[in-house]
């Protein structure tokens, strides 16, 4: 069936029969020159991304990152704050636990000193320049040869030669002073209870600080 065109369409069809003059490629070169002058490529600064991020995606990202930041912040900051509040309390508790031991050391030293001064039998005036404080006794006690020699020099020699050892002469410089192991055969405990004495003998290795304190007490026997 032949398609009939309306009158305006017929005119348009006639117009399309008009031969086109000129070459598109040649005309484009002229056009390009005009475009470079009027619309240079560098003039367009905004170039949309190939991957467009939707608005809801940005909102979601902001929300998730905020939640993550709050979570991480709470995990990092709050425990530190908790530590800051708990640490002094723990330190105080630790000090309180040490106080009786230190006190007992002081009282033992005082008792021993008064006994020596009074000339009570069984008390040999061994005075250490080391104050009852927290030191690494493990290291000192491991040096057995030195401690034994000092024990021999300070305890046995004076008793064998029957030369009284003056307290002042034993107050050597603190650096030379070495805490000594107790010589239990010749010395009786001063202020330890029976229970504590048993524990002390069981734990020869001396693991806890408290036990080391007790051992130190024995220096003043």
């Amino acid at each position, binding site marked *: 069936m032949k398609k009939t065109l309306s009158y305006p369409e017929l005119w348009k069809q006639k117009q399309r029969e008009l031969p086109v003059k000129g070459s598109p490629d040649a005309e484009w070169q002229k056009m390009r020159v*005009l475009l470079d002058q009027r619309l240079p490529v560098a003039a367009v600064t905004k170039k949309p991304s190939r991957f467009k991020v939707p608005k809801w995606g940005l909102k979601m990202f902001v929300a998730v990152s905020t939640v993550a930041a709050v979570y991480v912040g709470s995990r990092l900051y709050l425990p530190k704050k908790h530590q800051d509040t708990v640490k002094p309390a723990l330190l105080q508790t630790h000090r309180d636990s040490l106080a009786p031991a230190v006190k007992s050391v002081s009282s033992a030293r005082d008792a021993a000193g008064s006994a020596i001064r009074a000339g009570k039998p069984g008390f040999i005036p061994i005075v250490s320049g080391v104050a009852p404080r927290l030191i690494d006794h493990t290291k000192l006690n491991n040096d057995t040869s030195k401690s034994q020699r000092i024990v021999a020099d300070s305890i046995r020699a004076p008793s064998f030669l029957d030369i009284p050892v003056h307290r002042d002469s034993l107050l050597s410089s603190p650096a030379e002073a070495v805490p000594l192991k107790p010589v239990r055969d010749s010395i009786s405990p001063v202020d330890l209870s029976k229970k504590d004495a048993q524990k002390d003998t069981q734990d020869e290795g001396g693991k806890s600080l408290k036990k080391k304190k007790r051992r130190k007490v024995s220096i003043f026997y």
Partner: protein
Amino acid sequence: MNVTKKQAQKLVEACKLNDRGAQEALYKYYYADMMQVCQTYLAEEELAREAFNTGFLTVFESIQKFDPERGEPGAWIRKIMIHASIDLYRAELKFGNAGDDAPEPEIEFIPPPVLGKLYFEDILRHIRTLPYATQTVFILSVLDGFSHREIGEQLNISEGTSRWHLSEAKKQLRRLLENKPAAAELMERGEGK
């Protein structure tokens, strides 16, 4: 160049980003159609090319304003080409004193069968013999389908003046074709059917 309408739309989108490749593709895609428009309005070849390039420069400069929802890019570019062609020769547009009470011209002033057998180049040659203002109104109305109101706005004349020029153009053109033996014979046959 075979480019579908959808591809033409994509080319327009790329042209909005000042993409030279897309601009070249769009330019070449519409070259033939738009050059024919310019050649219809302007007799001189050089003027037609100038109008074409001026029109396409306007297209690229104002392509950001193009809204695909309102129409096809081809129709939008065609309008710009018509404006560019008329602007280039506007100095020659002399309308004179035309009466506002001109009769509504006959629509099918050339019978369709006769029109179908004529070469457009021959018709255009006859159109070129008319005064420039008259031939411009005729082309705007008959070939590009503008209303008298649109023609009046475009050429800054009244609707009556536009109507008169169209009427005069049709009359003269019919007369010219009747004086041509071959065309007259065709017209006689066409009218007889």
